């Protein structure tokens, strides 16, 4: 099965105003740089974006915020971004903050076909407001729902023409979880190979979850906190 598309612009061509998108990455690590650039070029607006973070002012999802393309952001941590903060405090941007493990599992459960689950994260806090609480073995848990998204956009290290994906290092993070959760999943990869070239034992995301794959170009892989030790 060939799922290869030419580039990011083709991969995202049917993303429309008002859609819900998942975008992989933790901080700036493992973000789909090519597709974010294409979404900025296309100028789609009123997007709901599910992503652990919101980039920095001039990179990642920060670029989409600059163009006021995002109506609502669903994230666990949104520091490091002054424009984000300004739009949030002025009410231009709707923000739903949810615990990181809950965010990850809400994506995963969508791909597992499980509509809801119970987690202890947030019990007794303001994020428990309006949520069903159940007691198991004497401990309280909140019911959380699986996420739905029109498109999931992920970044992998290697992929083959049928959409099998392998990630590298901690740039894996939310990518395999979101890959499972899109009605349509787009994967951009650093290395695109023919079917049969990847070892089936090493596949993180089986191609069944991926509808479109393309070889990304010009990865910047910006580092937020370059921290080194001296020799």
């Amino acid at each position, binding site marked *: 099965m060939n799922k290869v598309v030419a580039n990011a612009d083709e991969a995202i061509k049917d993303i429309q105003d008002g859609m819900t998108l998942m975008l992989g990455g*933790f*901080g*700036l*690590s*493992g973000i789909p740089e090519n597709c974010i650039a294409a979404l900025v070029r296309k100028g789609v607006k009123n997007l709901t974006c599910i992503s*652990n973070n919101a980039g920095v002012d001039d990179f990642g999802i920060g670029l989409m915020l600059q163009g006021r393309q995002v109506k609502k952001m669903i*994230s*666990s*941590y*949104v*520091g490091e971004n002054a424009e984000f*903060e300004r739009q*949030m405090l002025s009410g231009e941007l709707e*923000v739903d*903050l949810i*615990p*990181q*493990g*809950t*965010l*990850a*599992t809400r*994506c*995963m459960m969508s791909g597992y076909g499980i509509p809801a689950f119970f*987690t*202890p*994260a*947030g*019990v*007794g*806090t*303001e*994020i428990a407001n309006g949520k069903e609480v159940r007691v198991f073995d004497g401990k309280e848990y909140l019911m959380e729902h699986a996420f739905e998204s029109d498109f999931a956009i992920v970044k992998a*290290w290697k992929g083959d023409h049928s959409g099998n994906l392998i*990630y*590298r*290092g*901690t*740039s*894996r*993070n*939310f*990518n*395999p*979880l979101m890959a499972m959760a899109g009605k349509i999943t787009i994967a951009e990869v650093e290395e695109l190979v023919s079917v049969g070239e990847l070892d089936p034992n090493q596949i*993180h995301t089986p191609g069944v979850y991926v509808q479109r794959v393309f070889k990304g170009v010009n990865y910047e*892989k*910006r*580092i*937020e*906190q*370059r*921290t*080194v*030790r*001296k*020799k």
Partner: protein
Amino acid sequence: MGLTKEQIAHRIAKELKDGYYVNLGIGIPTLVANYIPKGMNVVLQSENGLLGMGPFPFDDEVDADIINAGKQTITTLPGSAFFDSAMSFGMIRSQKINLTVLGAMEVADNGDIANWKIPGKMVKGMGGAMDLVAAAKNIIVAMMHTNAKGESKLLKKCTLPLTGIRCVRKIVSDIAVLDVTPQGFRLLERAPGITVEEIQAKTEGRLVVEGEIPEIRFN
């Protein structure tokens, strides 16, 4: 005077045990890694998907695909493992992680913690903190005992939005080491030169003082 941030981290490192899997939060908790006793086998978890976090890389080893939860470049160690974010919090919620060290803006004497939001001022998000505090077996908080105005951050009841309830086990502040007990904060140790009276004055929550309170020792 009280302890420096490094000394707080050094004191917390005394709580480590051989074979522990540990999650260290951002800030003072990160410094605990510098004081793991030689020869002790402790595996550090970074919740963005790594077990076996190594030291910062040398300049020519920097790899954008290998970072910690504070988004700093790091290295792996022999035996390290990468995984996705759902599994990462899976091992936290299922209590495979033995110890979590994190910072706090406020802690209450029943173990409630607030560290993610100041309404109207700072709203950066909870990141993984709510998952960590809801499930960790053993939570140690590294914090300053008072705020910039000199007001206690160890309270009867938190004033800021909560991160988790009844979860903190131990606090190492710049002036004291305390356990959280059903009777309130139990004073265990005091920083060199700090009196019990001073700790009492700077602790708004219930404070239990029994017998002689020794000074913190680092070795």
